[in-house]
């Protein structure tokens, strides 16, 4: 991204080592959502709509604070509210900002058949190029987090992690709007360190022995990570999957089945051609001298 262009690889006519050689700059970006300090104000939801130019759409009411049941094609950022009952009978309002997780191993990209419709950048952002989208919806099946959604024109849209802002050195719009500082943006290693520090604080001083960081290994880690009070009960946070991975049926389809199928189709065409070379056609003698099949038996 913008950082990438500043690292020098070679310099013409230069004696000695390249300035800065050996310095590893980290390009991987990450959004940290600390669910333990979120107050559910929805400023991030509004900031997302504002920056991306979508109108505020109709909301639904289901005896909860939640704006709508799930994210929409033009509503990429949604806080999931859950009135969670703890084992001791007390109530706890869990609030998790739901959006695209920007997986290191993205299921949407694995499932997509359209050339260049989904791009994964070196900084970890997974972005949809709607101009190349063919509207097949395979990304919706490949995603373990239920994020891509069809627009009325049957193109899929989702959170871009504000790729347009990040490439200009700005932080995503939702981060900018958060009043409590529960949203952070930086490099993956910095965010991971901050998240672990916060989780340890929750474990040691705040009475949450199971507090932890959500950075699921099943999808190779994500570029949106969470701090949870109870990392052993991720489902309580609005259906956050405990061990997300690219669905096995998508993996079977895109790997072994594809190669078995390609081999089979080529073998089939070659096979019938070789059969023709070896045995030739079945030609009927029109003078009536051809023995009828099975008659001799």
């Amino acid at each position: 991204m913008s950082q990438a262009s500043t690292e020098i690889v070679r310099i013409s006519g230069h004696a000695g080592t390249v300035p800065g050689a050996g310095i590893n700059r980290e390009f991987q970006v990450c959004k940290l959502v600390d669910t333990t300090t979120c107050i559910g104000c929805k400023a991030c939801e509004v900031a997302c709509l504002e920056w991306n130019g979508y109108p505020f759409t109709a909301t639904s009411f289901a005896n909860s604070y939640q704006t709508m049941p799930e994210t929409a094609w033009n509503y990429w950022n949604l806080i999931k509210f859950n009135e969670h009952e703890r084992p001791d009978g007390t109530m706890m309002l869990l609030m998790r900002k739901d959006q695209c997780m920007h997986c290191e191993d993205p299921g949407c990209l694995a499932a997509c058949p359209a050339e260049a419709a989904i791009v994964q950048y070196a900084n970890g952002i997974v972005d949809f190029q709607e101009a190349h989208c063919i509207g097949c919806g395979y990304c919706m099946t490949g995603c373990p987090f239920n994020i891509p959604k069809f627009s009325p024109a049957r193109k899929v849209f989702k959170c871009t992690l504000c790729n347009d802002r990040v490439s200009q050195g700005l932080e995503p719009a939702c981060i900018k709007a958060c009043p409590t500082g529960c949203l952070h943006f930086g490099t993956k290693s910095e965010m991971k360190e901050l998240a672990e520090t916060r989780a340890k604080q929750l474990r040691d001083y705040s009475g949450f022995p199971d507090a932890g960081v959500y950075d699921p290994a099943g999808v190779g880690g994500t570029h949106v990570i969470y701090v949870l009070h109870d990392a052993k009960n991720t489902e309580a946070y609005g259906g956050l999957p405990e061990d997300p991975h690219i669905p096995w049926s998508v993996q079977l389809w895109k790997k072994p089945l594809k190669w078995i199928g390609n081999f089979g189709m080529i073998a089939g065409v070659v096979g019938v051609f070789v059969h023709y070379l070896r045995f030739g056609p079945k030609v009927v003698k029109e003078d009536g001298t051809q023995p009828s099949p099975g008659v001799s038996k």
Partner: protein
Amino acid sequence: MSREPYLLPNGRVLRYTFRERLVHWSAGASYVYLLLTGLAFWSPWLYWIAVVLGGPTISRELHAWFGLVFSVAVGLMYDMWAGQMKETPADKAWWAAIKHYIRNEDEQVPSADRFNPGQKLLFWGFFWNGGLLLISGLILWFPQFIPWNVRALRLAAVLVHPICALFTIALFIIHVYMGTAMERGAFGSVIRGDVSRAWADTHHHTWYQQLLRNSTARK
């Protein structure tokens, strides 16, 4: 126009009626379109096919509609042919002699009725795989209406659809090869409808003999 095959006066036999040929080619044309566009989405190496056929988005949309055309054609085939495609005890002997059939040693192959057991396999293969392709295809067409808690349907569909398609491709390769190159006279029979009496007697002896008996009975 007759609904049944019969002996033509000029030493020919009507093998496929106009209705049969029309349904066959409706299925054939829609299948070829489905195969080409399907292959385009199967492999990035073949994505260019969708570009040539008017663009990937239009190919994706029309693939679904042609799937409906194909399904209707297969349904009409079932209506026309299911009775004649029933497995009979004689089929076992035919399959036992498949080696001779493949090696063109046809005098050692039991005689066949209107459709030989290989053709029956083709028919039922397309019928059952076609049915599964239709069901999985409808799920793939409308994924937005499959709720998240039953997404197993979607996950099954992305696997069932290509597997069934591959089975039909195997049948299709053999069918096209036999119908054009291997069985001389077969392609003409599904275009013009007729075959020679020698052809009918060689490839579908039981059927031809029945036609002869029927025609003498009529006289």
